[in-house]
């Protein structure tokens, strides 16, 4: 077989730093994934410094969070996938229990009940971002692929229960992402294409029925989401400013910390959901394409790890984690460029904020574990 250089790079066969590679391999770290993630985080920190208006305090806080997240990733990579699989149902039930607890006695933050205070404050929905695809993969592990209709029903329940609980908090964005992570597992497991099309077709009359049951103000909210121009003093303002920022960046951008849209604070939420527009303005088309290439590389590496995995559980889980990461990137960039309605999804590993970063890194820890423990598993 002939391999192109790129292929060799993705397969991890280029060995310029042989000794370090062997060392990393021993502590179950995937060098390709680690280096690309570190590069992404470094770029993110550089952009964030500008987006925060050179606020060093906030920037250092993000730096510290990143450190914690990377340590978490390394720790998780030490657990063999076999062990993870056996723990999966317990992790899922534990997460489910916490979600119920949140609804019963959770702390209210910004109008929604998402936080739980067990010594440290955290959002149980973050656990479910990994526990749901793990649980679906666990369920399919001993069963035939592609899944049978009976099994699909069970999987539907596995996905639906946490999704509904999180939607009730209410946190619609997260609940949809968690559902997507679960559904991606089933699709990777060979859910029949005909069934997928049928479901998609059924969702049209379903949406119509839902619409007829909605109250007027709810309909109005949906309409504003679909058409931000109808609310130019509110949500539409973000998109107008974000398009100006990206468009004015041109081919090479205005330069780091020199974006007028950003620095003069025309662009709202520039350090969180709209940080992609900062990259567009200050680093231009070249900057955003480089960033997207880095994301593609990470997703590609994740899918490669999934292809290399030896059993159903690890294969499905690795595939789902990689594709979910891609969904984050796509939804955020499409939203910031005005292709899809504004939903609050941050740009992974670049936007300011720690909660989702830890979960994302934990996911990559699982990927690394799957890849580096392969040889210990029976074929």
């Amino acid at each position: 077989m002939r391999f192109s250089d790129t292929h060799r790079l993705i397969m991890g066969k280029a060995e310029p730093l042989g000794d370090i590679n062997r060392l990393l391999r021993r502590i179950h770290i995937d060098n390709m994934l680690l280096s690309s993630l570190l590069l992404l985080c470094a770029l993110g920190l550089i952009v964030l410094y500008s987006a925060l208006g050179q606020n060093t305090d906030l920037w250092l806080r993000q730096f510290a969070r990143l450190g914690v997240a990377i340590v978490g990733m390394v720790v998780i990579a030490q657990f063999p996938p076999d062990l993870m699989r056996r723990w999966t149902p317990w992790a899922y039930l534990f997460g489910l229990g916490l979600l119920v607890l949140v609804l019963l006695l959770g702390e209210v933050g910004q109008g929604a009940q998402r936080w739980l205070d067990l010594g440290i404050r955290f959002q149980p929905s973050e656990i479910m971002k990994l526990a749901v695809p793990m649980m679906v993969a666990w369920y399919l592990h001993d069963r035939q692929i592609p899944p049978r209709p009976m099994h699909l029903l069970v999987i539907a329940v596995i996905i639906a229960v946490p999704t509904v609980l999180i939607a009730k908090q209410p946190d619609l964005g997260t609940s949809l992402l968690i559902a997507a992570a679960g559904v991606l597992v089933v699709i990777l497991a060979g859910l029949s294409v005909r069934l997928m099309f049928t479901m998609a077709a059924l969702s049209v009359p379903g949406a119509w029925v839902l619409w007829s049951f909605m109250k007027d103000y709810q309909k109005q909210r949906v309409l504003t989401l679909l058409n931000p121009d109808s609310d130019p003093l509110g949500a539409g303002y973000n998109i107008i400013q974000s398009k100006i920022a990206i468009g004015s960046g041109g081919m090479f951008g205005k330069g780091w910390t020199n974006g007028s849209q950003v620095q003069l604070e025309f662009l709202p939420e520039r350090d969180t959901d709209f940080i992609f527009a900062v990259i567009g303005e200050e680093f231009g088309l070249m900057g955003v394409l480089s960033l997207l290439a880095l994301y593609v590389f990470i997703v590609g590496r994740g899918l490669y790890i999934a292809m290399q995995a030896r059993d159903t559980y690890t294969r499905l889980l690795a595939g789902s984690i990689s594709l979910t990461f891609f969904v984050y990137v796509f939804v955020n960039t499409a939203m910031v460029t005005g292709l899809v309605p504004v939903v609050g999804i941050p740009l992974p590993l670049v936007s300011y904020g720690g909660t989702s970063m830890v979960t994302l890194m934990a996911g990559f820890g699982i990927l690394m574990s799957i890849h580096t423990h392969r040889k210990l598993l029976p074929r």
Partner: protein
Amino acid sequence: MELFSPIKDHHSETRIFGGRVILSIVIGILLLGTVVARLVQLQVIEHEIFAEKSQGNRVRIEAIPPIRGLIFDRKGRVLAENLPTYQLELIPEQVADIDDTLRRLARLKLIESDDIDRIKNIAKRGPYFKPVTLRFRLNDTEISDFALQRHRFPGVDFQPRLVRHYPYGQYTAHAIGYVGALSTRDLNRLNSANYSGTFHTGKTGIEFKNEQTLHGSTGHKQVVTNARGRQVPTDPRDRSQSLPDGVSSQPGQSIYLTIDLDLQMIATKAMQGKRGAVVAIDPRNGEILALISAPSFDPDVFTVGMSESDFRSLQNDVDRPLFNRAVVGTYPPGSTIKPMLALAALEIGATNLTRRNFCPGYYSLPGSSHRYRDWKPEGHGDVDLHDALEQSCDVYFYEISRNIGIDRMHFYLDQFGLGQKTGIDLAGEQPGLMPSRAWKRAAFREPADQTWFSGETVIASIGQGYMLATPLQLANAVAALAMRGTRYEPHLMAATEDPITGARNLVSPKRLPDVDIQNEFYWQSIVGAMNDVMQGVRGTARAVGTGAPYRMAGKSGTAQVFSVAQDEEYDEDEIDERLRDHALFISFAPFDDPIIAVAVVVENGSSGSRVAAPIARALMDHHLGYGDDALQ
């Protein structure tokens, strides 16, 4: 059947999985391709448009505030309108050094230096692209002064705005209320999106109560502005400047009030230099013809934007000009309740029209030496119910009060609307107080205070003690007397009118339950006695009523502000003006077919018949067409 775990076909599984991964990659490339294409569109194809927008020009969404609805009186005279004025505004994001700019403006005397901190706080709060008003109503000199200096103040400019103006300010202030600067608290209460671009909102009176009707809905448009925030005219041929169409604003509804500006002016002028309130009602439907509270104030000062110290002095004025005495002020009703009490007494048989009592000038409860004094120390002699009303004999009412009892007193006066809100369409109305045994039990904590004493019934019979009523309640009660028991809810709103279509929406009168006294003869006797108060030989207010070209009925009242000790003489000249008795007067006319009912309260006015009654007469004269031109 699958007794054991199903046989897994690893090869087929790997194949299926591989297929799915490739499918995902294809879909992923399509999705990412869309984003990349979009980026190329924004950053390469349309780059120049956006570069220009971010550099020299900036797209801004500008709210188009609606025009506030006008307010008219019952004859269509404008009481509240919107005048174009210029105001000085600052756009925070376009000012490099706000501190320095404000200080320089203060040096030009365009803003007060006391205001700098306040403006700075507003500017800091943002949004930074929203103009902050530095000064309302610039005069011509100020406009030309600033125009010469404008180049030195980037981000500061004057803007034409419509500002509320009340042409008859102090005459209508308490009926209409006023608009004032929109505060954070207002924005929490109102739909804030509908108030972007709006600087004022109704604070009191009709302006407050009908905010939704008057405000209208805000429109918006996208405008292109240069770096200094000045709007650049768009060239329709230039693609880069083509902007989506905005939405135009919808003006607020106009309001027609039931009040008559002439009566407002007559009443205000008559109350000049006094404190108190005048309320006139059309008894046939509850329409408020006049509602004033004295002293009044100029409502325009709230839209001009006054300095902190001016506002404080207005608020801390001992005469409390901002206090709407007509609906919020509560006073002991004094003898004005006697006609109502007389009706109750007849209805329950506590007295009759022929019973005569001797009035020695004082009254004592059996077994007590405490003397309840009549206003006339030498006494009224032998009086029946008619005489007692005409001459306002207190002792007669002291005596029959024991037969009525406080709870039945409460029962009937309650039917005249005392002790409860009238339901007028103004905010902040007070219910007053109509005592009863049950009320006293609930109102006091100490068991010793909870018992009702018979002495308290005695003084309640002349409207003293715990009893309190607003001038509006008194006007509404005398309207019920005028109508011989038929009652309406008082209201100021006559109609709303759409300024575009001219479609009117009339407010229909709301009838309240009648006073439950059926005997027509009782009504005629008591109202007849009220006629004699004004136009009888010995009526207390005959000096005011005699010689009028029409028949009228009335009742004066005097309410003690502080109690006079036993056997002490009450001498007007010797006591402080603010401790003198309140003067009250209720009346209606014409006697047989009433079309106006008036209540007047003059704080510390001493005498209802001498001080308050002439004011009521002036209003009735004008309303019945006998007025001299008191307006000029």
